[in-house]
């Protein structure tokens, strides 16, 4: 901890450094490049949408829009080879002479493939491949196929190597994301590089509609400095859809299925090249009754208070959320490459069926209402080819209201239990007047990011990212008494990062070194218990970290990566100030720290028509210290403390294969890690596996594609996937007789479905899918059963 004057000095230094950097880079000179644009047509001069246009020998590529148009800026001058391909057409290559600051216009006609022998292999690299070829320790999930199917984003994430998702129910339920063993706030979530809480897309990553996301980037333990954020175990960045070309384009999807599930998502975008104006917006509505059947134990006077097993539908577990966002902007102006303003709102109400371990009577009237609204400003400007600056800022207000005001208790059949009970609320009898508590978070964030390329091999990146969170609260059922939820706390966080990037001439070696500095200041008046005792004060944290990522490509078939970060995770609002429920704030928490190391090997086959395969092996180490641990203070209240050290050593492997000229594909992955307690004092159980989190899990999926079953534009996909999660203990593994220990059983689940897809002017699809095909009883958390077999149908249209 430092004195406040030190922090001001720190901030002044960072700002001074930024302006110095700005001054230097404005003197930089421009590297010549040009632009290619045009359209892709078939032999009948009809546009071919979603064709791939790739710059051969590089990782650059774009797709055509619904009218077959494309634009590829910043192409190096000189003769370049362009590869153009699309399903059901014969790919071609073109030589194009690129001149400095000029636009080369192309009109390309593709010939239809007349037989299976001429079937297309996509030659352009997707953004997934391009990103995974960078030095970053990253897994990328393209959602172009997944968004046609019915699993939610949590399920999609759970199929990614290294990622474990634990769910407390169906759609809208509590979700815990674990990345190589680190979990919860140790992993940061972003939407378009903006923290999730500023995105207005959802309050929980699993609830975001997949149809609004193009790609998921999972950063394993080493988080690029450009995110301007702290994170201990990595980050997940969701990349949303963006407008394609000048024409109106959009997407709409509707999903209906078991347990009263309805999911609607829409997207519209339009830009005008002449004026530079663009507008895009999306909206979503999600609803699920979550009335799936579970097995419970019940007892009453008729059973002589002996427990009897019963299968009942959940009844107070409805989830509903809706929201919208609109972005207005200008691009390609002298004074701005892009400037945009985004408005968004989100509302969610979620009923709560039971306590976290589903014991005792269920809740029939507990509900959580949440609202989030705000705006984001984005400004981007390049000065020549060597310098660019991006400024993002945003304000958000989120309020979460917990209501527990029922005067009736219910049993698992949803029937009121008639008892003489002059207590309001179901969560705790100790709170006699119920709960109507609201927590308000006013969030402000900004980020200045500047990139400076010395030349094509050396570049720098600087990011400055201050964030302020102010939390207040109230409990509406208090009339004259003291409101212990009347928190007033402010958490100011400032993260800076500087990255040096190097790329050798042959593009075979890439290295990025970065340093980050962290500053956090908390000011608070918070309740420290149930007795209306307030704690007032301030605390400062000043820390730093660094890291390096390197990639060496031996050839197109074999590459390796090595990455490391000394990472820092600052205390979050709930940890510092409490949640107004059972968690008492601890403003004096220190940051969590970790040495994160990854070594990745990547092998893939030569590009072939008949089959392709790839294999990625990643070994990792996470050596953490000062982990923030929730320590119960009594039966009702807990507080966070820095008490635990733990080390995770593990490996994840992913393999893909395509056979039969890309019609049959396989994708499987497996993750195992040994995440063990290394604390030698205080907490005990040194050497034990960190409890209550999956440590061995695997996924496998397959897809068979029938091409042109009814016309040259359509496809049928038959797919299935399975997931296995090994059993794990809820508490320390060496504590207690195994025969009586609470454990989460292993699970093996299967999904299967079929998609009919037509790609003409409008790409449309219809999917029917069954999840948890074998109707397994599945648990992610102890005692909380997840949904059984479920049927879904989804209709998607994109133009």
């Amino acid at each position, binding site marked *: 901890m430092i004195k406040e004057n030190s922090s001001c000095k720190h901030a002044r230094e960072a700002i001074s450094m930024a302006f110095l950097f700005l001054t230097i880079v404005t003197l930089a000179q421009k590297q010549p490049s040009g632009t290619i644009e045009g359209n892709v047509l078939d032999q009948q001069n009809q546009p071919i949408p979603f064709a791939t246009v790739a710059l051969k020998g590089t990782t650059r590529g774009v797709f055509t829009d619904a009218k077959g148009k494309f634009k590829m800026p910043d192409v190096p001058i000189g003769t370049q080879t362009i590869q153009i391909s699309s399903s059901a057409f014969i790919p071609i290559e073109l030589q194009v002479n690129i001149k400095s600051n000029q636009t080369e216009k192309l009109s390309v006609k593709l010939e239809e493939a007349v037989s299976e022998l001429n079937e297309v292999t996509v030659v352009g690299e997707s953004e997934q491949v391009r990103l995974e070829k960078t030095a970053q320790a990253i897994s990328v999930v393209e959602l172009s196929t997944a968004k046609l199917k019915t699993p939610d984003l949590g399920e999609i994430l759970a199929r990614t190597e290294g990622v474990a998702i634990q769910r407390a129910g169906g759609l809208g339920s509590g979700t815990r994301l674990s990345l190589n063993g680190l979990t919860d706030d140790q992993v940061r979530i972003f939407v378009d590089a903006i923290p999730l809480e500023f995105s207005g897309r959802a309050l929980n990553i699993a609830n975001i509609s997949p149809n609004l996301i193009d790609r998921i980037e999972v950063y394993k333990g080493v988080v690029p400095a450009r995110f301007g954020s702290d994170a201990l175990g990595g980050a997940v960045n969701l990349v949303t859809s963006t407008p394609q070309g000048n024409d109106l384009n959009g997407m709409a999807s509707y999903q209906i299925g078991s347990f009263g599930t309805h999911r609607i998502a829409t997207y519209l975008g339009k830009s005008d090249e002449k004026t530079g104006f663009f507008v895009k917006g999306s909206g979503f509505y999600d609803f699920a009754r979550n009335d799936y059947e579970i097995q419970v134990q019940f007892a009453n006077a008729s059973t002589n*208070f002996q427990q009897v097993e019963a299968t009942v539908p959940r009844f107070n577990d409805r989830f509903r959320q809706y929201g919208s966002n609109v972005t207005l902007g200008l691009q390609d102006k002298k004074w701005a490459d892009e400037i945009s303003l985004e408005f968004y709102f989100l509302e969610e109400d979620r009923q709560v069926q039971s306590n976290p371990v589903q014991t005792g009577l269920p809740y029939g009237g507990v509900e959580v209402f949440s609202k989030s609204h705000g705006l984001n400003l984005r400004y981007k400007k390049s000065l020549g080819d060597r310098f660019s600056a991006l400024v993002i800022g945003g304000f958000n207000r989120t309020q979460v209201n917990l209501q527990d005001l029922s005067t009736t208790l219910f049993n698992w059949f949803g029937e009121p239990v008639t008892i003489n*009970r002059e207590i309001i609320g179901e969560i*705790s009898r100790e709170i006699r007047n119920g709960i109507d508590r609201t927590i308000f978070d006013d969030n402000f964030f900004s980020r200045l990011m500047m990139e400076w390329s010395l030349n094509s091999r050396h570049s720098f990146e600087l990011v400055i990212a201050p964030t302020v969170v102010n939390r207040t609260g109230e409990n509406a059922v208090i009339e004259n*008494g003291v409101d212990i939820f009347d928190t007033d706390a402010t958490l100011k966080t400032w993260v800076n990062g500087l990255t040096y990037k190097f790329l050798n001439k042959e593009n075979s070696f890439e290295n990025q070194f970065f340093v980050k500095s962290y500053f956090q200041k908390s000011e608070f008046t918070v309740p420290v218990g149930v007795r*209306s005792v307030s704690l007032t004060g301030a605390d400062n944290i000043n820390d730093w970290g660094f890291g390096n990522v390197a990639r060496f490509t031996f050839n197109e078939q074999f590459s390796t990566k090595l990455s490391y970060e000394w990472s820092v995770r600052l205390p979050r609002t709930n940890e510092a100030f409490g949640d107004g429920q059972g968690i008492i704030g601890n403003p004096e928490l220190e940051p969590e720290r970790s040495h994160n190391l990854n070594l990745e090997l990547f092998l893939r086959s030569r590009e072939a028509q008949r089959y392709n395969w790839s294999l990625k092996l990643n070994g990792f180490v996470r050596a953490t210290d000062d982990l923030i641990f929730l320590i119960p203070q009594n039966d009702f209240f807990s507080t966070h403390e820095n008490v635990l050290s733990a080390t995770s050593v593990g490996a994840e492997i992913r393999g893909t294969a395509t056979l039969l000229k890309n019609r049959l594909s396989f994708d499987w992955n497996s993750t195992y890690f040994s995440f063990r307690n290394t604390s030698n004092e205080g907490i*005990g159980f*040194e050497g034990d596996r960190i409890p209550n989190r999956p440590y061995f899990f695997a996924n496998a999926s397959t897809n068979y594609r029938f091409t042109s079953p009814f016309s040259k534009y359509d496809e049928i996909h038959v797919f299935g996937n399975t997931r296995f999660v090994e059993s794990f203990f809820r508490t320390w593994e060496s504590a207690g007789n195994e025969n*009586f220990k609470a454990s989460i059983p292993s699970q093996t689940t299967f999904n299967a479905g079929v998609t009919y897809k037509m790609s003409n002017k409008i790409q449309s699809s219809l999917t029917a899918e069954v999840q948890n095909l074998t109707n397994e009883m599945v648990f992610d958390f102890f005692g909380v059963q997840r949904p059984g077999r479920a049927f879904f149908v989804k209709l998607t249209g994109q133009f």
Partner: protein
Amino acid sequence: MDLHFTLTNRKGTGFKVKLVPMIMLAFSTMLFIGCSTDDDDDMDPDLTGEIESAVTIVYRIIDSNSDTWFIEAYEDIPNEVDIATVTEVGQRGSTVNPIDGAVLVWNGEGLITKWAVDRTNLDIFQDGTIDIAELGVEGDIGTIVSKSTTEAYLMDNKIGVIVKFNPEVMEVLEVITYTPYNPVGWFPNDPNEPFVNTFQHRLNGDLIIAPFLTGDFNDATAPYEAIMFVFNTLTNEVQFVTDDRIATGNDRFITAPNGNMYYPNSWAAGLLTENNPNHDVSQMPSTSTILRFLPNGTWDQDFILEMNDIDPGMLTIWRPQFVVGNEMVVSYWPPNTPLDPEGGISLGIFGQTRVAATINLETFESRPFTALDQYNGFNIIGEFDGKTYIGAFPAEGPGILVRQDGIDIYTEVLTSAEGVQLRQVAQLW
């Protein structure tokens, strides 16, 4: 062959004992013992294979996701804890109640589970449940009181329900309802005030007695009365016995070996001390007192300990700890207790204290109690074979189990493993 030996007395007279019939008699006896049932209570434990006496120790382990309770049964207090063999019986919010030959675990959500202990090998196994959630009985209702092997009680004064059950077969015998004691002004405006409750139920003859933890701890404006819940197990009658000599009370009462109960009043004052930035207890609106409640269910009107009269330094009583003979050990906060570096006086989950005194209950004279000063705090956690056991909590490191061998004589008998809390010691049989 006549196998025999001769028994003679001091006078030299004797008689012949034939060996073959004797051997047959011995075999018959052994056969009879071997075939006898386990429930023959009159049989010598040595002959039945039963362990003569057993103790259970309750452990609590906390990790980032759970707060778990474990039990283990031993013939005697062990020298060390093998945490790998203990039995997980409950999670956070549980109450563990050893009874004769078993442990009843109340999960706080309406479920009582009986964990029985095998008398021959001390194996622990689940032996029945009772689920009374639909009676609305949930939350921290306090201790289960066992009157006999076939009669136990669980009491919930918040809704006025007493559940009488047979722990031997885990069967509800009777549900007794009464009007809970909720005087106006006790649950005024702060819905988050959880402390109006009865936690520590004690069997005293045929009475089950429990103190009310009362008062508004923000400004000590609660009604000036002490409340004792008294339930007569013979008549099923509930009484609330009040005394207006006390401002606010708490549930940290103790029972002396002779059945008298000692009831302190000043926890609220202590909290006010914590809230008071100057920690000047002389500003407290009430003084600390200790009243005595008699085994017959009445307040002893002739007994009151005014702490201020005994020693102004003991103005703020934290709790009486235990009574040995005529002496009672009390822990207290002295005036002007400084804030600790973490920003407040740590009440601690065990009610730790660093300052205690011994008061003679006849002369009311006090003397410092320093025998456990080397620990950060201490608390009685049970009895076994007539000895009292105290959980002692050093400032750092694991908890220590201390046996009381005299009011000033203590022996460390067990150090728990790191991260393992010692919560309860109780005689199983």
